[in-house]
């Protein structure tokens, strides 16, 4: 078995200092304390394209934007039942993020799969933000345990439960993995490059399809996230 124990574990505030962010290294394991809010296409469209007022003080209350919607229910008495919490793939939100980071002052973007290192260098680094990935993408129950309470659910009538802006109070919530650092490097791209060295051997004894597709590539260093 690999040595998972040699990875560095870090507790981090959801309103982190510039020093704490600069200290993070690719592959560090992070646990979060403080308020975190969910925002995905519904929130971005409403806040940026429809210019609705963001119903929180950002980034004072929270600088942690989670690409997620929880498995949760709003009860008839207005209380919330929250079970598991898992991220959704972030690359789909790239078109809104430059404006969102500038507007919200988010320092931590948390999600699934990360973005490209070009995205990090273009608008994460100038805004002092880094990207944290959830682990395995299925650790919903572990992350659910890290949520002490649901503080608020904004815009659920307009956007539905899955797209609403959930404000979660977190304590030692994790694990997350540092995917981008303060220089805009990407852990996924580092791993991709290592794996690519072996790929030509794996593909020996295979052949390209007789019927081609438009836009097809045989360059296996490419990614599908665009």
């Amino acid at each position, binding site marked *: 078995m690999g040595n998972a124990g040699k990875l560095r574990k870090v507790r981090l505030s959801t309103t982190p200092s510039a020093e704490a962010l600069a200290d993070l290294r690719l592959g560090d394991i992070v646990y979060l304390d403080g308020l975190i809010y969910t925002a995905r296409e519904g929130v971005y469209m409403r806040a940026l394209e429809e210019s609705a007022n963001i119903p929180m003080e950002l980034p004072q209350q929270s600088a942690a934007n989670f690409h997620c919607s929880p498995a949760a229910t709003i009860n008839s008495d207005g209380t919330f039942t929250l079970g598991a919490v898992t991220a959704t793939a972030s690359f789909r939100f790239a078109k809104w993020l430059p404006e969102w980071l500038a507007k919200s002052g988010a320092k931590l973007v948390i999600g699934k799969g990360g973005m490209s290192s070009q995205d990090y260098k273009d608008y994460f680094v100038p805004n002092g933000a880094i990207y944290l990935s959830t682990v395995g*993408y299925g650790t919903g129950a572990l992350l659910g345990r890290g949520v002490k309470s649901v503080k608020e659910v904004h815009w659920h009538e307009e956007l539905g439960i899955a797209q609403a802006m959930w404000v979660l109070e977190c304590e030692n919530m994790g694990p997350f993995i540092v995917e981008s650092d303060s220089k805009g490097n990407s852990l996924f791209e580092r791993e991709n490059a290592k794996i690519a060295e072996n790929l030509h051997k794996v593909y020996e004894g295979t052949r390209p399809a007789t019927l081609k597709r438009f836009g097809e590539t045989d360059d296996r260093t490419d990614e599908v996230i665009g």
Partner: protein
Amino acid sequence: MISTSLIQSTAEILMDKAAIEIPQDYLDGLTQAADAEDGDLSSFVLQAMLENYAVAKEDRRAMCGDTGTPRWYVKMGNETQIEGGPIALENALRLATANATVNVPLRPNRVHPLWRTDHNNNVGIGAPEIEYGFEPGGEWLDLTTVHKGGLFGTDYRMLFPSDGIEGIKRFYLDSLVAFGKRGLACQPAIIGIGLGGTKDSCMVLGKRAACLRIVGDRNPDPKIAALEDEFKELGNSIGMGAMGFVGKSMVIDCNIEVGYCHTGGMQMSVHAFCLSSRRAVARIYADGQVEYRTDPDWFTPYQRRESVTWETQESSAKSA
């Protein structure tokens, strides 16, 4: 006669079990993969997943916050009768899906594709899917719910006989590598492959191979069974593990199903069931007895039959 209320109450229990309890066959497969994994980051991910399954059961909360797109597979013996008929059955399954979405809770994932309307209950046009199968003999109803993730890890391609096994391998590897990077497919997973049929039935076969067959199961055709072994090994030799980190756990098992296709073609689909391989099964008998299990046991000799009629085969076997 099987009562509709028993169908609905059993279905609600199945929704809960599927979302929360990792099936033992997958858990055993993942534990073995975790023991064999030598990448540091991949090992950390697999350990976190194992811990997550335990926490989900302990807290009775969903394994994953994305609780997928719940669907139903209904199978019945030839003598089975359902109170109120098939309409009552479908009502019961839609009610169970809506109730469980609130009670477990599940994420209300299902929305209108254009208007994004969300009923907050995972029910809508064509949702949940309800598919049917039948078995000769018996008076029972098998209910299987599968909550497969809905975005990445699945692909289809029209291949031709001239593409051969080499072409099949290429498309298999392409699917694993493309969706494996950054762990989009939420690997390591049970990979299902559909070969043949028509485009739509090829997709159905591959999806069922991933979701309705368990880890360790093998196709009864020994040559296909050998391919399943070979493809599992091939997927795990890419050098990629969980989340697309350096490692060697991509495929917990590979299941292949085939269907007769156009003489000029060789359709192929690839499907990755994710780290939270959510499936739960119950058999309901006419006397009200209910047995829960995790193996859908979908692909029986009857489902894979090649002969024109089943009865003919039975009687010719007897007369021989």
